[in-house]
């Protein structure tokens, strides 16, 4: 099986930052699957490798390409950074390597310009936490924002569309939980503020 990489077709790289238990890894996987459904032949989704603990900062990555992804090393220069918990923005490694014209997508009550983040990238924000609280998307006392934030990610980046995301969500989630998650995605998509 000969495999060829294509530099002109460098994969789109997304890095996800959250806290252990928030579901950043699941979010990374959902987008990968949705991109595949959308017709991208090469997708990978990986957790940051090693021991993970509830509440501690964790990261994950997604790569999306029209050809099989050959890169297995960790994402260095993401095109998109997604932050599930805005308190993580104080760590410089969260936005590290995020390129010009890239997107920083943050779960935050603040509009993009008030985040106080400087960079040549675009910023999108949405208060996914409030959306999920209003909908009661809370498990064991923890507000689960990982699906909601996908609404903001696709509004900003248009990697996939809402119907594709819904299709994948219906495959991955049980009937009893999928509707509330879809409602969270749609609402967050609606309220996301973009600053280019």
């Amino acid at each position, binding site marked *: 099986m000969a*495999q060829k990489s*294509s530099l002109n077709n460098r994969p789109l790289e997304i890095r996800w930052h959250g806290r252990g238990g928030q579901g950043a890894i699941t979010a990374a996987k959902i987008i990968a699957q949705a991109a595949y459904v959308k017709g991208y032949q090469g997708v990978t*989704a*990986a957790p940051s*490798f090693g*021991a993970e603990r509830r509440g501690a900062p964790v990261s994950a990555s997604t790569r999306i390409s029209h050809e099989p992804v050959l890169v297995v*090393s*960790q994402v260095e220069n993401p095109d998109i950074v997604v932050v599930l918990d805005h308190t993580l923005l104080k760590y410089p490694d969260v936005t590290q390597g995020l390129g010009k014209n890239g997107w920083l997508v943050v779960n935050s009550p603040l509009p993009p310009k008030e985040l106080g983040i400087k960079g040549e990238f675009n910023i999108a924000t949405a208060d996914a936490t409030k959306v999920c609280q209003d909908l009661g998307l809370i498990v064991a006392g923890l507000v689960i924002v990982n699906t909601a934030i996908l609404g903001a990610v696709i509004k900003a980046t248009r990697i996939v569309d809402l119907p594709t995301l819904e299709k994948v969500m219906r495959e991955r989630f049980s009937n009893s939980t999928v509707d509330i998650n879809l409602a969270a995605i749609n609402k967050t998509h609606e309220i996301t503020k973009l600053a280019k």
Partner: protein
Amino acid sequence: MAIQKKSNIHILDGNQAAAIAAKLSRVQVIAAYPITPQTPLTEQLSQYVEAGELQAEYVAVESEHSAMAVCTSASLVGARTFTATSSHGLAYMHEMLHWAAGARLPIVLACVNRAIGAPWNVLNDQQDSISQRDTGWIQIYCRNNQEIMDTVIQAYRIAEIVHVPVMVCYDGYILSHTEMPVDIPDQKDVDRYLPPYKPHTVLDPANPKNYNLVTLANPRVGVDGKLCHGYMELRYLLQEALQNSRETILQAGKEFNEVFGRDYANMFWEDREDAEIIIVAMGSLAMEAIVAADMLREEGIRVGVLGLRVFRPFPKSDVVRALRKSKLIVVFDKNISYGSEGATCSEIKSALYGTYINASIRNFIVGLGGRDVKARELVDATRKAIASLKETVINPDYPEWICQI
């Protein structure tokens, strides 16, 4: 000839791929002890058994040594057996790995490659399986999750023909925990490719026999008056089986292609006729190496990639053929034989001895304990290797390490 088949692609991580492959191979006995990063694989298999989706006996053992002892016993009574482990678990199995190979049992083991302590580390390198190099197992390394799926299925075909156990090795986390598209074969096709296991000898209480007496150095006459092999003859036959398994491995890959439309040989060789510089790597690193080779090509440096797949038996003649035009061979190893060099580098040097190929060889130790290995680092190392030829073409005694010392 490749055939067009309807694909059934799912987004799976490496452990899921291995679990599904074991299920499709209709394994009958699974004995395993959980260890990071192999754990989700054994959990998945025990769920299959619990849910009745897999008609197998799942033996929850108290150690990896027992896991391989159970597999050995189950294989002796005619069951198709599977186990999986990593790192310290594989090391703990060491004694029984020798036993399984010596008893010529077609057990398949998935080794989810992980570093060995001290210092304590749960991340990827290939020191664990490389340390079991001389146990008499066939070792096959995978570059991605599709190859994990396909190789586990092929492993049973190979093992049950040559009567040698097969270790299917794949990188912990980098593959085991990374999701990517995988085409799941159809059960009917797997059944066609992999007929039920027919053991050459079965321990049967209804027909009691005495096996495995202390085997003396020299052949001796058995109770039936026939001359029986001594220890050395039996061990010669193990070596001969591995030597001759090349054909079976190639045939298994070819037949796999006929049924499933995916072609496998004993290595991954991209024939770039003009390349005089060859990068050699094994496992997922052989994918990253293709990206590195493309980056070097953009700079006008012509580089080919040899991805090692079958490490035991080492495909000497095939490797030599692939390297016939090489002037510089850059070998990246995620393991080291301490005091010597990377294991695959030694193999390459050994394969080239006595041939007309007089290439310079540079060995780099990379990625130990999960240290990330980026394509640009492979590019830098290759450039460095090229520059070193100006100083001397003689091969250094020891490898260079890509680390901060």
